[in-house]
């Protein structure tokens, strides 16, 4: 119980801090709307968008219903291609596997493409503790790594950073490399990062990427990027390691096309990201270059358990970030306030399932149930319904506050007795109507200050619908 209480305080504190952080608010203000508008344009340009979303959902549902079979078929193909597949039950096991591969390869420098699963594993800290130099190469991830932070958005990791903050970070970290000018323009900042990271790309011993998809038909891992960093990470080092959740497998290349059509559109409003790449196995005899070894680390970390319960649809998630972009709560507090690697609606559903209910009581409640997340999801995950389900589960597990539970029970008791309910409601309704009918809204309601502090309450009609119904029925 005390752990729950401290987490609760921590979440409240984090959101308050986020709302008062002027840099964060400035950065989020700039980002707000951009992704939403671009997605709308992309949708308008594809009349078949909804049909494609249905197809995408069906593919994912089919895979999940046959997940063990597809994982085995995928594994077979990777082995045929000369690669190795490792299975990890937990984040710790997965980190150990990656660390062992690096050690065996006598690696010193590791480059990383963006991988949310590796964030979930806290892989960087484990590798650094093992004495490796780990460099994130996605520009957003690189900025966040320099700042000693974690990504605040699954596809735009540094969305919370202003240009001024990036200027300072680059100046602090690049001066010693000879980049002594303080650059402030976007183009110059991008060029400086490009130039600094170039040397790392060509000297890295191991490259670690995630996977947007794993294709059972060919054994390929698919990565989707705009920068090209994931491809340099996959193709230049001696060893390529792919970290992926077990739910990433899909049957065929044709299935891949369906999912790609909804992924980029939902994420950034693009029809295709600049680079969609399929990597299958290590260098072949006929290749003039490419990694000598190719490893895939498949992470479970609670996913197989999710398959069985009422949250299976969450495993359809393709990590596009549309639900974050459309969430008013995310847009106000940013990703870090959620306290773990996954934020926004998908994070509020996933975090309790992967990290435990006790430690994330506030997340499903930090939601207005406006349903935009559910409406925009490319694989039609009923996110807002799952958040409600979480709340119900919290109530069942007695994780919600005692007083709140009492109120809910009292309300339920009254509400299931219609005559009593109507009798009790008549006076307050009439009072509220009397007090507010001229303005059409109430500025204050006793005992509901938390609600009316920041908004007005629309004045109710003086008499309830049922009473009006009865009296009109009597007249006709």
């Amino acid at each position, binding site marked *: 119980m005390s752990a729950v209480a401290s987490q609760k305080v921590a979440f409240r504190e984090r959101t308050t801090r986020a709302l008062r952080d002027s840099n964060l608010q400035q950065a989020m203000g700039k980002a707000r709307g951009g992704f939403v508008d671009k997605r709308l344009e992309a949708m308008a340009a594809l009349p078949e968008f909804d049909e494609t979303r249905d197809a995408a959902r069906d593919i994912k549902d089919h895979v999940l219903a046959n*997940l063990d079979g597809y994982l085995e078929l995928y594994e077979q193909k990777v082995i045929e291609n000369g690669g190795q597949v490792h299975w990890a039950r937990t984040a710790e096991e997965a980190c150990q596997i990656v660390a062992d591969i690096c050690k065996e390869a006598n690696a010193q420098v590791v480059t990383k493409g963006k991988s949310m699963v590796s964030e979930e594993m806290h892989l960087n800290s484990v590798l650094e503790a093992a004495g490796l130099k780990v460099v994130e190469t996605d520009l957003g991830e690189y900025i966040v790594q320099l700042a000693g932070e974690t990504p605040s958005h699954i596809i735009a990791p540094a969305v919370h950073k202003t240009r001024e903050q990036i200027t300072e970070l680059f100046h602090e970290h690049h001066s010693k490399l000879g980049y002594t000018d303080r650059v402030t323009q976007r183009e110059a900042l991008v060029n400086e990062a490009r130039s600094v990271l170039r040397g790392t790309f060509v000297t890295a011993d191991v490259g670690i990427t995630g996977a947007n998809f794993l294709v059972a038909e060919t054994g390929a891992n698919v990565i989707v990027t705009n920068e090209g*960093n994931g491809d340099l990470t996959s193709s230049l080092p001696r060893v390529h390691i792919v970290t992926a959740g077990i739910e990433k497998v899909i049957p065929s290349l044709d299935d891949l096309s369906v999912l790609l*059509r909804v992924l980029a559109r939902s994420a950034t409003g693009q029809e295709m*990201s*600049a680079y969609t790449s399929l990597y299958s196995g290590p260098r072949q005899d006929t290749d003039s270059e490419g990694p000598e070894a190719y490893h895939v680390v498949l992470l479970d970390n609670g996913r197989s358990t999710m398959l069985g319960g009422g949250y299976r649809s969450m495993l359809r998630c393709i990590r596009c970030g549309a639900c974050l972009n459309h969430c008013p709560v995310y847009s106000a507090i940013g990703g870090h306030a959620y306290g773990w690697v996954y934020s926004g609606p998908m994070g509020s559903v996933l975090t309790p399932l992967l990290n435990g209910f006790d430690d994330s009581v506030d997340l499903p409640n930090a939601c207005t149930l406006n349903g935009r997340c559910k409406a925009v999801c490319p694989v039609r995950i009923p996110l807002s319904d799952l958040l409600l389900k979480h709340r119900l589960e919290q109530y069942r597990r007695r994780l919600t506050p005692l007083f709140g539970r009492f109120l809910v029970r009292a309300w339920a008791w009254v509400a299931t007795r219609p005559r009593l309910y109507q009798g009790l409601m008549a006076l307050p309704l009439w009072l509220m109507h009397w007090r507010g009918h001229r303005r059409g809204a109430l500025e204050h309601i006793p005992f509901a200050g938390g609600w009316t502090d920041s908004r007005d309450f629309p004045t109710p009609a003086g008499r309830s619908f049922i009473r009006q119904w009865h009296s009109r029925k009597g007249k006709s």
Partner: protein
Amino acid sequence: MTEARTQILANIRSALTGGEPRTPLRMNELKARIESSTPKAQPHFEDELLNRFCQKHVAVHGTYERVAAQDLEGGVLRHIGAHQVDPQLYLGAGPLLDAVQWSDQVFTYFKSADQHTQVAVSEAFAAIAETGTVVLCSGASTPTSHNFLPEDHIVVVDSARIVRHQEDVWTLLRNREDAAARVVNLITGPSKTGDIEQTIQYGAHGPRRLHLLIVELA
């Protein structure tokens, strides 16, 4: 780690079927679904393929020139001349590219690109009209590094290799006579990032410019 594998698969089976093992018959059904896979929910468009391809490629900040097969070197020289790039070409391979007799105006290299490589000239395995995408496959003379390390990437496209939908590329790959390509890159425009202030900036880590030389054979 076989223990982890066994346990994860057992967990999945128990979640899905209450622990019933998956029968060989069921596995064959899954294999059959993969083998008989067909495109689903494809976008419909009637545009002529070459026009659509060019229009989509330009929309993602790409440039192109339609050239005759005999004028491929001219096309390369015009592009690198316009951007004042040294004529040091890292060359890939393909039916059109292999036929070019390079003059002494250019230096040609047949090896992997490195961090100083300015220009690579590749030939596309195929191109996709739907999205303006070029498809490049790795191989003995077509290193993947050419697609990502240079500042300028010039790609030769045989207009007869432009297909309508992405899935048509999978069909071409499945029917290829050579061994399956280890790496397949679908490239749609030059490298870019939106990571600073959510504003697009070109030339993040990959090529700053993607220039196509489109050849229409009679």
